[in-house]
């Protein structure tokens, strides 16, 4: 009996529904103190006065720290451009300037508020284009002194935090002989991950080492960042993970952890806890970056794309985080999934006086696919072609070579995706059923499964159950509580309820690259499968003596070790485990896995830090929308997804990721937006003004999984969770533009823009007369 592809309840489900689960914000230590941060109220300025005397004398206060109390070092995930506390300059609203530890949270916050802080404001660098101008103020006048966290330096200068440029021959020639040149410009705003659990951390300094308790997607990255900021070697930091209340990329880099650790050291080892208010969390979260994307295509009379130029300018915010690695994703998305001649790509990441941006599910891809798929609609419309037919005509096929030289052996799956969507929502029927203010949009994408390393130990207990020791995190997706659990159960022939996966602890479990890029089921699942294989081998070896059979003739199944083909000749795993413990020693297995980067052409671009897309998957989405011409509100009536998933390990988990990712994409398309004022400060500051999708907003997604098992993945699994967010903005924007008969190229598509578009194109809106009888 298999548990792969079966509906298995998640192992952490009951503790979550009953309120027993201990999240980061719930974690407490005996005698724990509370911390609070003083954060910059302005986006750009120079600190002229910082006096902590009065704050330090307030009731209950144990310590007040500023830059003078922290090691004189710079830290950072990719580039070491950050200090723990602002020293002279402040570069974004919310930047930490001082930290307090006190007996209670209220005392800590009161003391932080009592610190005397004076800042001479400076003009904020906000506009992405102006930031590039030679006369723009520099966010980091000392940018040349920064060094990468590892490896060689990368293209960057002044306010340009990273740059990736591909300039193949033949682009200008193709534009010169084009039948038509189609140009578009797209604007995308920032999106807040808005996990419901705000960030928190508990730090403890004991026995010369730091221990940090946190609910985090990537505990080993916290270890590294704390070690950088506090200037100790990585092994001097232990990170213990707790149940995580959502992350979506925002909990991949350290946040409050180094402050909690340093405060604990300064107060003499008492645990210190920090927790963000929702506003602190929103203001300082590494949100999805805003970006400006320009696309130009040279097309012939049939719509073949002879050449293309894509320029994207994305906002890095004041410090770099993970972002420089991601600038080259523009190269991989520049053609979308369509045939295209030489493609020039210029991708720049700009420093600004705004909160540092970072990873959010579908990094960079959401606005790049929005641009590419809106542009495809534009070309089709200009040439009088049906938008779906045009895509099918230009769709890449097996063996397609992408701009980075990567060859996609299985890109033909895309056509299968279009067919699957067609079977659920036939395009011609949707067109025939058109009504006023209704529109449809379609789009497609390819995407990566994060390849980074992971490891697991499978430890057999003498009762026949197993523990899986790993630093992997279940961020809610079920990748651990279902995926890894099912994979180990399947391999060992035991029920999933007999598999217990540990919470992350960097003192115990080996390196894991965290819950990112849909990697956990595939990478940690594969590592766990290999570890379970070792357990199986050991069980067969010991059982061979007990069953008086050759080990090669034995199999592990149904909770037993048995002779193949002789089901009666078997012995329970538990008995083998006990026998093993007393003869050869306790049984455990170890597995490690990493996906190699697919071959690419290193000369295709400069600044190619994310060189290719390992374990690619393919995606086709369709949306039908209805617009209220009075209010300008857009309602998504239908949403269809066909997605290549390798193999479904957990149907509930897979659907949950598709449904949840599409929902975040609908929010991104229609209303979620952290708007930046001219002063560099966000306009939205709470969940009241930052509107999230509600139960009343979202239709059930119609989902068709496409299974093409990957021989390298555990039971064929590829990444699933990240990609559903890639296309909603694209296909909804296409659908709204279709409904109105005018292009809407800025996201989110807010009611004011819809109304303006309706008024601006009154003659183009489909009226009742245009509907076929």
């Amino acid at each position, binding site marked *: 009996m298999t548990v792969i592809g079966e509906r298995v309840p998640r192992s952490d489900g009951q503790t979550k529904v009953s309120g027993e689960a201990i999240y980061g914000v719930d974690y407490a230590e005996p005698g724990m103190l509370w911390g609070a941060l003083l954060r910059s109220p302005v986006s750009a300025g120079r600190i002229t006065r910082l006096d902590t005397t009065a704050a330090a004398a307030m009731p209950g206060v144990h310590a007040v720290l500023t830059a003078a109390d922290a090691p004189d070092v710079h830290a950072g995930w990719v580039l070491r451009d950050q200090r723990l506390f602002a020293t002279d300059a402040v570069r974004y609203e919310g930047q930490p300037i001082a930290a307090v530890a006190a007996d209670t949270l209220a005392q800590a916050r009161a003391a932080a508020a009592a610190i005397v802080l004076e800042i001479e404001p400076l003009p904020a660098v906000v506009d992405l284009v102006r930031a590039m101008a030679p006369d723009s103020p520099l966010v980091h006048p000392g940018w040349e002194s920064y060094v990468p966290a590892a490896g060689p330096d990368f293209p960057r200068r002044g306010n340009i935090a990273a740059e990736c440029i591909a300039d193949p021959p033949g682009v200008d020639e193709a534009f010169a002989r084009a039948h038509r040149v189609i140009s578009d410009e797209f604007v995308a705003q920032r999106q807040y991950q808005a996990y419901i659990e705000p960030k928190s951390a508990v730090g403890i300094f004991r026995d010369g080492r730091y221990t940090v308790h946190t609910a985090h997607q990537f505990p080993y990255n916290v270890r590294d960042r704390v070690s950088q900021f506090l200037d100790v070697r990585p092994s001097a930091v232990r990170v213990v993970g707790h149940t995580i209340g959502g992350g979506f990329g925002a909990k991949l880099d350290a946040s409050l952890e180094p402050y909690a650790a340093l405060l604990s050291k300064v107060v003499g080892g008492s645990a210190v806890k920090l927790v963000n208010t929702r506003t602190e969390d929103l203001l300082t979260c590494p949100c999805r970056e805003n970006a400006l994307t320009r696309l130009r295509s040279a097309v012939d009379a049939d719509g073949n794309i002879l050449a293309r130029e894509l320029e994207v300018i994305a906002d890095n915010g004041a410090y770099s985080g993970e972002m420089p690695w991601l600038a080259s994703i523009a190269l991989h998305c520049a053609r979308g999934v369509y045939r295209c001649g030489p493609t020039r790509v210029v991708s720049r990441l700009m420093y600004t006086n705004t909160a540092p941006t970072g990873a959010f599910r579908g990094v960079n891809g959401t606005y790049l696919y929005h641009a590419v798929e809106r542009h495809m609609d534009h070309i089709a419309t200009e040439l009088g072609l049906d938008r779906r037919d045009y895509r099918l005509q230009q769709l890449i096929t097996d063996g397609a070579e992408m701009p980075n030289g990567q060859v996609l052996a299985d890109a033909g799956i895309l056509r299968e995706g279009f067919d699957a969507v067609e079977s659920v929502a036939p395009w011609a029927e949707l067109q025939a059923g058109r009504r006023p203010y209704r529109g449809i949009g379609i789009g497609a994408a390819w995407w990566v499964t994060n390849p980074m390393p992971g490891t697991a130990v499978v430890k057999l207990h003498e009762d026949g159950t197993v523990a899986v020791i790993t630093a992997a995190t279940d961020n809610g997706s079920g990748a651990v509580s279902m995926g890894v659990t099912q994979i180990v159960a399947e391999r060992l022939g035991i029920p999933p309820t007999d598999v217990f996966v540990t919470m992350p602890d960097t003192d115990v479990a080996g390196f894991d690259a965290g819950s990112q890029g849909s990697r956990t089921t595939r990478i940690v699942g594969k590592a766990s499968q290999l570890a379970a294989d070792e357990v199986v081998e050991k069980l067969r070896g010991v059982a061979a003596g007990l069953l008086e059979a050759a080990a090669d003739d034995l199999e592990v199944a149904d909770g037993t070790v048995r002779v193949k083909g002789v089901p009666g000749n078997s012995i329970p795993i538990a008995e083998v485990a006990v026998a093993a413990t007393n003869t050869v020693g306790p049984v455990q297995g170890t597995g490690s896995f990493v996906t190699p980067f697919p071959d690419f052409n290193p000369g295709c671009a400069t600044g190619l830090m994310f060189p290719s897309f390992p374990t690619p998957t393919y995606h086709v989405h369709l949306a039908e929308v209805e617009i209220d011409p009075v209010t300008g509100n857009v309602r998504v009536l239908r949403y269809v997804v066909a997605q290549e998933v390798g193999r479904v390990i957990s149907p509930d988990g897979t659907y949950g990721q598709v*449904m949840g990712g599409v929902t975040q994409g609908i929010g991104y398309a229609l209303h979620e937006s952290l708007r930046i004022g001219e002063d560099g400060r966000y306009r939205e500051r709470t969940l009241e003004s930052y509107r999230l999708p509600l*139960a009343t907003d979202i239709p059930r997604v119609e989902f068709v999984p496409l299974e093409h098992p990957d021989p390298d993945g555990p039971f064929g699994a590829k990444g699933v969770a990240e990609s559903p967010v890639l296309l909603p903005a694209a296909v909804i924007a296409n659908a709204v533009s279709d409904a109105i008969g005018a292009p809407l190229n800025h996201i989110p598509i807010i009611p004011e823009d819809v109304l303006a578009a309706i008024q601006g194109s009154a003659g183009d809106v489909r009226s009742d007369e245009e509907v076929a009888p």
Partner: protein
Amino acid sequence: MSAVELTFTVNGRPRVVEIDPAETLLGVLRDRLGLTGTKEGCNEGECGACTVLVDGLPVDSCIYAAAATAGRRVETAEGLTHDGLGRELQAAFVAAGGVQCGFCTPGFITTLVAVLREDDKPSEEDVRTALAGNICRCTGYSQILDAVAATISGRNER
């Protein structure tokens, strides 16, 4: 502020606690009674993670004065584990994939207990409307609605 004594019932047990008069119900539940199953997501009554029942009605405990619960009945996620309907909903959430990160889940289940006690067969549209004060960032709500549907049909079978 001088402390005052609050006498109320929490999950069926009479409790007496010293509180500050301005304290929220959420603060009293989490910090004084250790009932951390009720979550703080926004502290402004937007997200619904802190939903508890006061005399059977759902409230956002983060903006609800603890003092206002004097002499009243408070139910939290922990207590609903011992309630027939609460247990059914909890099991249905797990079975239907209605739980991902789970941080919002206690608030959802609490709201839904109140809804289904009032009307044991609400339409999906009614359920969606009733849940408009609870934000889930993970699931997109469909599997939560599946869990509610399963609970409704399970009850009707008996």
